[in-house]
């Protein structure tokens, strides 16, 4: 008889490079909240490799079932309604991977992330990636690995760049503590993220 169903080991599919990269910012045993956790792959990975106490928030019925099957703590909630049920400073890290661009209340959710978490990690498609710029110059909205949808069916409602995000953080008294970037092949980008990164990840905190 199993003593705990947490022990169940599930074979995790290969993680996206941005998810692998942010794993290094998570210390063992942390309390982690993953906003828009999808089918729970990232949390499964963090539980298996870092032993975190993890919770995911998701609003899609099929993904919630997928999380349950993976043995992930998933809580159904609409992120645009905030995180009012959660206490200040309860989590070590609050993660939002590739979901900020699909949210209406951008400023509200960033504030909420840093209310319930000590730090937050946000990854998003960088609209100013050079191939996207080229596409715009050619007169077409960019469609790529990081922006896979057509303009008429994209779930994204906010299009912004690394530079834009930096400016918003300044306005909200949020400090960007570290950046990571990846090109459209998933290779790490070392410099000029706003131009060379298709996908950007920021580790942010409240300015002291």
């Amino acid at each position, binding site marked *: 008889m199993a003593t705990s*169903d947490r022990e169940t080991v599930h074979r995790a599919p290969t993680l996206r490079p941005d998810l692998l990269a942010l794993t290094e910012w998570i210390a063992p045993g942390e309390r982690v909240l993953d906003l828009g956790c999808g089918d729970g792959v990232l949390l499964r990975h963090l539980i298996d490799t870092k032993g975190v106490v993890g919770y995911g928030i998701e609003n899609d019925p099929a993904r919630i079932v997928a999380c349950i099957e993976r043995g992930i703590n998933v*809580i159904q909630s609409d992120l645009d309604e905030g995180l009012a049920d959660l206490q200040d400073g309860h989590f070590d890290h609050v993660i939002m991977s590739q979901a900020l661009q699909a949210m209406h209340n951008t400023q509200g959710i960033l504030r909420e992330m840093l209310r319930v978490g000590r730090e937050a990690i946000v990854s998003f498609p960088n609209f100013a990636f050079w191939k996207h710029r080229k596409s715009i110059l050619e007169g077409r909205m960019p469609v790529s690995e990081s922006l896979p949808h057509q303009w008429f069916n994209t779930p994204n409602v906010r299009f912004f760049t690394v530079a834009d995000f930096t400016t918003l953080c300044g306005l909200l008294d949020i400090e960007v503590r570290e950046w990571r970037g990846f090109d459209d092949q998933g290779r790490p980008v070392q410099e000029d993220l706003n131009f060379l990164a298709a996908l950007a990840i920021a580790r942010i905190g409240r300015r002291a």
Partner: protein
Amino acid sequence: MKHPRSVGFVEAQKAHFDEPLPLKAGRVLPQYDLVYETYGTLNAARSNAVLVCHALSGSHHVAGVYRDDPHNVGWWDNLVGPGKPLDTEKFFVIGVNNLGGCFGSTGPVSINPATGKPWGADFPFVTVEDWVNAQARLADRLGIERFAAVIGGSLGGMQALSWSLQHPERVRHVLAIATAPKLSAQNIAFNEVARQAILSDPDFHGGNYYEHGVVPKQGLRLARMIGHITYLSDDAMAEKFGRALRHGITRYSYDTEFEIESYLRYQGDKFARFFDANTYLLTTRALDYYDPAADYGGDLAAALARAEAAFLVVAFTTDWRFSPARSREIVSALVHSGKDVCYAEIDSKAGHDSFLLEHPRYHAVLRAYFNRIEV
């Protein structure tokens, strides 16, 4: 996935307990019977037992039918059976009629050995905690040290929650559905109106109506009608009945004019024929009194700190009796006390009643959760 089937013919069993049961309200039940049903087979490791807790009007008859009463289908038959979300080929499922009930377990209708007459109004107050303790004794009797899961909806969800607090080491998973960590003033208000309907019925006789050969039918009927209003959503009522007229024309009378009236009267009459008024009073009071955070200054997270189980909490969007906000109170308290918890909010039109229905998304969530429980 195998085609879901009924558990088929089932039989109720009775367990007699001679060891007195101390009750939360201070009195002691000297001896008692519990009626129960089981489905599936307890495995050799005794690790696959699931307890199903019933709500206000439920019973131990959770699934299947009786050989001599093939139309009496268990109240959660759509959930429990071979190939169903709570799969009886994997789990050993137990339904128990709670103490104070009127389906065979010791209650107000039973004979008080001290007087030789029905307990009636003298039956002691029983609480959610008392029910759980009685269920634990039945588990002892059946050789179950630890449940794979305890599941319940509404008042049953409160028992499931209470299991994790009263006997933390004895339950691995709690499935609390369409429930609340305590009643609101509005909930208590509805219960009070229902009770007053019974208490003010001239046939109630202070609760000792058995010796007068009557039952407070009118009161019980009214109580059930009030209940039914709270079980349905405004939308569901509008869709099911709207303003439809019983006779097609307005008759200007206080007789049944609207279909909704006909429905409520039918439900009330049906209920009054088989349910015991004293049980109704006791059970609504048990609901009112339940408040596990009370001993912790109202801090539910502190109250839940001792739980060892993992939790699944489910709520339904149109349930206004136990709204999703009430379930979220449980969920956030569990998160803050570091417990494993999943929460699903099901889009359903059917209000509080949804928890008894076979909603595809709802059952997909339950199926996924039960699948992940190892036995």
